[in-house]
């Protein structure tokens, strides 16, 4: 059990000394996951909002597929993007494999269904409330989507947080398309996997503690924004 206390000591030591490698890895993790979540949010809001409002054949199937994709295993998303970006694949010409951009793409694939499905649910709930009113105003479907997204903005923050949680925690996809290359594509999660396989359990656990702390801070920041905005809106 000494690994636990060792882990806390190591984590503290790494943070206090602002270990250079750690900062680099941490910044890359945040850069990749935050960018992926930002892109996935735009895609997810549009897809989710449209699915809630527009009526078209096959809509139910699309919604079901989107929800099912929330459970897409990261390794599968990684393999899919690897095959696309490989030199033997259709997008090999872009030379993106084993770069942070490849990791962002893989995480967008992973996170968009989560944000999309949660957005669709939030918008559908709101639509039930507003349907009559919006229809009486003769609003166009696009205007309805915009209205629903705006009125559901606090719930959408939760969707974004769910997506961020997935992105920052996953290791399977970034390992395959990033390659865990030191100083290039090594993130917190791939570093944790590497240290575990070296048998440095305490160090791996220490990195885990730091990752959790960062995730906690990001969540806290977004929830504070949410609270503040609500207070201002109803003041």
């Amino acid at each position, binding site marked *: 059990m000494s690994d636990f206390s060792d882990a806390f000591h190591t984590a503290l030591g790494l943070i206090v000394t602002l270990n250079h490698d750690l900062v680099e890895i941490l910044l890359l993790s945040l850069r990749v996951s935050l960018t992926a979540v*930002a892109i996935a949010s735009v895609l997810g809001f549009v897809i989710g909002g449209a699915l809630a409002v527009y009526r078209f054949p096959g809509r139910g199937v699309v919604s079901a597929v989107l929800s099912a994709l929330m459970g897409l295993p990261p390794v599968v998303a990684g393999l899919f993007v690897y095959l696309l970006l490989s030199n033997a694949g259709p997008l*090999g010409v872009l030379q993106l494999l084993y770069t942070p951009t490849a990791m962002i793409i893989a995480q967008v694939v992973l996170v968009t269904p989560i944000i999309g499905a949660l957005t669709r649910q939030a918008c559908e709930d709101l639509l039930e409330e507003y349907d009559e009113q919006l229809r009486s105003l003769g609003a166009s479907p696009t205007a309805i989507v915009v209205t629903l997204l705006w009125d559901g903005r606090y719930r959408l923050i939760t969707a974004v947080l769910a997506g961020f949680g997935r992105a920052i925690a996953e290791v399977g996809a970034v390992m395959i398309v990033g390659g865990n290359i030191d100083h290039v594509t090594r993130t917190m999660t791939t570093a944790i996997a590497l240290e*575990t*396989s070296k048998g*440095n359990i305490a160090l791996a656990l220490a990195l885990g503690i730091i990752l959790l702390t960062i995730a906690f801070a990001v969540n806290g920041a977004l929830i504070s924004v949410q609270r503040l905005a609500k207070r201002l809106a109803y003041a």
Partner: protein
Amino acid sequence: MVGSCSKLKEVHLTASLNRLRFLGLVFLCLLATTCLLATSHLALAADDDFILVQSTTSTQNSGLFDYILPKFTEKTGIEVRVVAVGTGQALKNARNGDGDVVLVHSKGDEEKFVAEGWGVKRYDVMYNDFVIVGPASDPAGIRGLTDASRALERIAEAKALFASRGDGSGTHKAERRLWKRVATDPTRASGEWYLETGSGMGATLNTAVGKQAYSLADRGTWLSFANKGDFEVLVEGDRQLFNQYGVILVNPATHPRVKADKGKVFIDWLTGAEGQEAIGGFKIDGQQLFVPNARNLD
């Protein structure tokens, strides 16, 4: 009533205009992020003074690359990016053209890789050896045996737990060869006493230590492994446990994007006097992990 309704409509219109503006702003922000991302990628791509080496977990986990690569980069200015996977996957990735150089340890597969036109030429680089590790209590009584295959046979007879890589890696293939020599097929007992982890060397050792199972490991990973518990090297020194590493340039005739010139500089360095000296100088606790044995020493 009519008046209040049109009033409501007006309020709503202004509000939706605001919303549109807001969403437009969000969209612009994201567009800006994407552009930033694209340019940062371009900046990265322009700096292409690097080569990509597909290699194995055993070399990375041992810390060899961290020791020798900075010396190479300092001399030549070429950065080396290492993707560490099993030998099987490394060769597969290289077949897809995703790498300039492969540095792996399964001679038969490497020669096949070259014969099929995926690689230019194979060079010996260095060797170390495999060891059979296990709990100090040694339930199958293999300690001190000089025949590694005999040791595995005893493990099978005792139905003692054995953790195998099970991932088509160089180490896994070496283990399969050992079983073959005593005509034993352990996979029949897969999930009983024969545990195929399907993971890297370190992960497999973690499993072995956790389950008190025997395992075959390369000495480099074993020496640098930090979670040994009460495990010890029980069998070593058999000629069958020899572990040769080879390096191959991925064939630029098959994959035109291969950085053949820089890759060749790396291979020449690795198999030349300086690289060989660097490999020989890598030690953990005073123990040398790899023995350089390239033949074009000059």
